[in-house]
């Protein structure tokens, strides 16, 4: 009884997910045992560097991995308590765009250049709500465009007639018109200027309040996460190395060495420092699986145990850290 109740508490639950790309030369291990859970209306930030597996995770949830090459090796992805892996394509079609939407990084390439923007937003409604009358659909399109700040008088225009920020808002309108419960936003503001970025984040916040949609925000920008999200997952080498509320991650002293490194290499607006402190070394080669801790080679606090044994997740008040450093402190206590 309690088991069931616990399950429905989460909108999305990813457990021990392993995803690999089978290329001609080698197997690339992109996601290695990733866990994630998301409540309704929650805003979760996924941060990490290029190649950490952030986008692969989003594509796995929607099962949009490249055919034949991308393969979910093991694990489970549950949406509202229902297992998505192994579901037929027809089921996923009903989910994509309707209940789970995705915003891709590049607004310049995610719109169809040969169709007017109004038609492109209309198409989404047409697919998911075929029973609405044409007038109703048109009215909804107008309303949605207005909401994202595009005058409906411009809906007959084509993507090239809009600026980057406006294109991104049109993509957001398409993603939200079916009022999805979950929005996967993959670097939605990376290609945009800061003042436009502020507008888009403000808009996404407002939409969240309106529809109570949950948002997974994928980004490498820690600042955006700190301002927009409730919770943060820091991803490295295809796994979550730290998870916690924004206050815990950016406010407390206990941190995964990788998170600490990421924060330290940002130039600060508040303090003048002479030199930045980059993280030494390179990202792990994803073609090999790591014996011990995946961050050991770059870590300043690396101990012998880190090279041989994988660390376990340590939890304290909902703040989770995957690091051997915290074994010791617990023993000491």
């Amino acid at each position, binding site marked *: 009884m309690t088991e069931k109740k616990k399950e429905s508490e989460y909108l999305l639950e990813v457990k021990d997910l392993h995803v690999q790309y089978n290329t001609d030369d080698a197997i690339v291990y992109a996601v290695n045992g990733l866990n994630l859970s998301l409540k309704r209306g929650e805003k979760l930030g996924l941060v990490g*560097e*290029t190649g950490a597996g952030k986008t692969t995770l989003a594509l796995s949830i929607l099962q949009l991995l490249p055919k034949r090459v991308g393969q979910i090796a093991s694990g489970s992805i549950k949406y509202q308590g229902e297992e998505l892996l192994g579901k037929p394509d027809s089921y996923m079609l009903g989910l994509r765009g309707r209940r789970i939407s995705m915003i891709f990084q590049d607004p310049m390439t995610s719109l169809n250049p040969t169709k007017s923007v109004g038609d492109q937003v209309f198409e989404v409604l047409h697919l998911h709500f075929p029973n609405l009358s044409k007038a109703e659909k048109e009215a909804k399109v107008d309303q949605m465009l207005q909401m994202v700040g595009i005058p409906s008088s411009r809906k007959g225009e084509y993507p090239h007639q809009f*600026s*980057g*920020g*406006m294109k991104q808002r049109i993509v957001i309108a398409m993603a939200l018109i079916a009022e999805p419960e979950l929005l996967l936003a993959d670097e939605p503001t990376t290609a945009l*200027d*800061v*003042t*436009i*970025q*502020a*507008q888009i*984040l*403000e808009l996404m916040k407002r939409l969240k309040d309106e529809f109570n949609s949950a948002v997974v925000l994928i980004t*490498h*920008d*820690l*600042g*955006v*996460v*700190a*301002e*927009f999200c409730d919770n943060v997952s820091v991803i490295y080498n295809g796994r979550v190395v730290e998870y916690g509320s*924004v*206050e815990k991650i*950016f*406010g407390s002293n206990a941190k995964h060495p990788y998170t600490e*490194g*990421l*924060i330290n*290499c*940002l*130039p*600060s*607006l*508040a303090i*003048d*420092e002479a*030199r*930045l*402190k*980059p*993280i030494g070394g*390179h990202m792990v080669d994803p073609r090999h699986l790591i014996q011990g801790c995946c961050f050991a080679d770059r870590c300043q606090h690396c101990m012998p145990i880190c090279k041989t044994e994988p660390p376990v997740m340590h939890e304290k008040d909902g703040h989770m850290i995957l690091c051997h450093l915290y074994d010791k402190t617990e023993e000491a206590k």
Partner: protein
Amino acid sequence: MNEPLVEGVNLCKYFKTPRGLLHAVEDVNFRIYEGKTLGVVGESGCGKSTLGRTVLRLQQATSGSVLYKGEDILKFSKHEMHKVQRNMQMIFQDPYSSLDPRMSIRGLITEPLQVIGGRTQSISSEAIKEKVDAIMEMCGLPSHYSNLYPHELDGGMRQRVGLARSMVLDPKFIVCDEPVSALDVSIQAQILNLLMDLQEQHSLSYMFITHDLAVVKHISDAIMVMYMGQVVEYAPSKVLFDNPMHPYTRALLNSIPTIDLARRNRERITIRGEVSSPINPAPGCRFAPRCPYATEACKVSHKLEEVAPGHLVSCTKGAR
């Protein structure tokens, strides 16, 4: 008072388009001293890259002048230009497309020496090899990289190659056009450190073009904020961040997302609307259509005024 190394005077660059004249850079003045960095910030399309290219004469300016050690290089003949060219170099934004994929790393770094160096003086091939080795080490490129090709390198290493290509000519002045925008934060920190080290060792001057305000604050001595081709504010780095006066600068600084939790609940200045078209723009302040303080007078004139020593601003309505 020492002379500026590079100086821009009333620099304008217009482009002819089918729909009219596009005012990309409008009446820009700046001074860059030896060993110092001028940061140029602004949003995409504000003319900052065009400014950088015009300063190096990669594009011919419409009017105005660029003085290098007091001489107007825009009036130089081709031959005279070759002589100053080796002192004035550029690093490009995209390390993926600015390197010839069919040349080895050594070839790429040698090329500028052969092209520009060869025109002014002849160097023996041994001297070239020595020079390239020294530069590679200086830019943090291990020697076993010399026979690799650009596709075998990651973004940070490619940007180091781009930097080595300009450094090999021993320049005095480098225009850095968004050199770290395409890189991850940890790599970005490495490249910024390298740029600052090189500046210290060789007393280089930089014009550092970026849209990232935290980066520009870190690296610059003075900062110039541009909006649609016009300079709206120009001040020493610290002054600009402590006491921004132009409404646009204030909005820009306010929009930067930071990890500082204390700033999370700050009062937000969001500017509505989009950048309007720079083709045949109306006279006056170009920020006026988006500005919360705009009055009729703003649509008439736009002029930089010195409000404090070294602090120039075209409008003080944003000041507290």
